[in-house]
């Protein structure tokens, strides 16, 4: 078993599609949010919407860590990167995200040296090799990625490294889901829960969604059959009048998450009182910063960080897209002023941003693509 190809079988997908269609009540519209951008990417990359009946709509949620980084944080990172002796590192995903004055690539074309790393441990390795430089790691990501930053910090302290710093931008998923549930302009019938976040936090944190908001949640894997099966499980709950948290992705997600990972996060980071999410505004207790014990590693304390707040461009409707109120193509600037070459909003930058995924993979109607591909 490779745990990949087995979950990409078109024949089984058609069987699932037939079952999903059977569960649809005639005349009823179903709206499910896939919280996680990884799901959005899978849905478009594999053309999954082709398998769903017209009355099921998948709404793309806020679970794209790059998409929710506000412009001001990008500018702050570039400001840090400009300071003497600094080598800034981050994931490849961040390189093209526009700040108020361009992206990391644009900054590199002027006067910075911002490098991509595959893992925070790679940034730590650079710090070890170059004691004369100050290596800053711009940490982004949800609870999936936070443990790797935490473990890297613990490692840095154990080794006594003094030239490694973290610019923490980790966000937490539950407050964002709650903000969406409380948003008056959105009606959802259920959620596809973020599979990889759940490897860390487990399935219990979603229980309030079923209990307090009466919406079913199915924690879903990332292969195409995982997503279709999860939609099927949501439909089955609705058909049976149930409302619970189910775990489709049991092969990877333990019900209680990863206690060591949670402990590592807790040991190194604490919740910020509030954090700005691009498009969604300020959300209470929705992000992490380093604990006081790690102050000497905290780029926000060690370096001069302007912390300027930059309003999202007026034309950009990323917020509505991230909340699932607008479909990407309903945004005023989608595909015209805002394209992957010249993104205005972050949803167009990350390959898992709803707009980029839609623009790159799915901007033609299902019917037209289907006809074209059969010529």
């Amino acid at each position, binding site marked *: *078993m*490779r*745990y*990949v190809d*087995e979950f990409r*079988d078109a*024949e*089984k*997908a*058609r*069987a*699932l*599609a*037939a*079952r999903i269609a059977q569960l649809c009540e005639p005349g009823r519209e179903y709206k499910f949010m896939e919280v*996680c*951008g*990884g799901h959005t990417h899978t849905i478009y990359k594999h*053309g999954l919407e*082709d398998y769903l009946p017209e009355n099921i709509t998948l709404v793309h949620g806020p*679970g*794209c*860590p790059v998409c929710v980084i506000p412009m001001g944080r990008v500018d702050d990172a570039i400001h840090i990167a400009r300071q003497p002796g600094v080598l800034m590192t981050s994931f490849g995903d961040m390189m093209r995200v526009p700040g108020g004055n361009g992206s990391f690539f644009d900054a590199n074309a002027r006067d910075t040296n911002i490098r991509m790393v*595959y*893992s*925070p*441990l*790679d940034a730590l390795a650079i710090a070890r090799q170059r004691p004369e430089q100050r290596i800053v790691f711009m940490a982004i*990501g*949800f609870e*999936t*990625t936070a*443990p*790797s930053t935490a*473990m890297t910090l613990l490692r840095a302290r154990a080794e006594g490294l003094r030239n490694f710093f973290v610019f923490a931008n980790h966000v937490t998923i539950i407050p964002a889901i709650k903000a969406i549930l409380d948003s008056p302009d959105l009606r959802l019938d259920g959620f596809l829960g*973020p*599979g*990889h*976040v759940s*490897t*860390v936090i487990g399935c219990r944190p979603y229980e309030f969604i079923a209990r307090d908001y009466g919406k079913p949640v199915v924690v879903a894997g*990332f292969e195409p*059959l*995982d997503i279709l*099966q999860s939609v099927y499980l949501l439909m089955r709950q609705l058909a049976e009048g149930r409302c619970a948290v189910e775990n*489709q992705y*049991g*092969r*990877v*997600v*333990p019900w209680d998450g*990863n*206690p*060591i*990972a949670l402990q*590592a996060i807790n040991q190194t980071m604490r919740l910020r009182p509030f954090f700005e999410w691009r498009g969604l505004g300020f959300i209470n207790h929705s992000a992490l910063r380093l604990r006081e014990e790690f102050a000497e590693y905290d780029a926000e304390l060690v370096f001069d960080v302007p912390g300027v707040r930059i309003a999202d461009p007026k034309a950009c409707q990323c917020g509505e897209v991230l909340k699932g109120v607008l479909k990407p193509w309903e945004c005023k600037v989608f595909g015209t002023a805002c394209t992957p070459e010249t993104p205005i909003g972050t949803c167009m930058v990350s390959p*898992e941003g709803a707009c980029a995924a839609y623009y790159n993979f799915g901007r033609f109607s299902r019917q037209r693509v*289907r006809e074209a*591909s*059969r010529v």
Partner: protein
Amino acid sequence: MCLGIPGELVDTVAEQPDLGVVMVSGVRRKINVALLADQDLRLGDWVLVHVGFALSKISEDEARAVLAFLESIGTPYADELTALRESNIDGWPGEH
């Protein structure tokens, strides 16, 4: 939101219990396995890799359960499909 790749644990790293070597399609990479210190990892186990860390040990039983479920709904469906094809209804995706 986070790219996680299943890989098979194929090697350990001498004197570095936090590290292991995973193989993905014949490609090897050293990863950190400290987040699974309580899992009694053995060579041949599969783990989910994210940014150089193993986040979770993959359960073959759970994977087989999902596949068995998918098989089970596929079987009666195969008969329906034949019936559908005979009644000449088109529009199924993926049949190019």
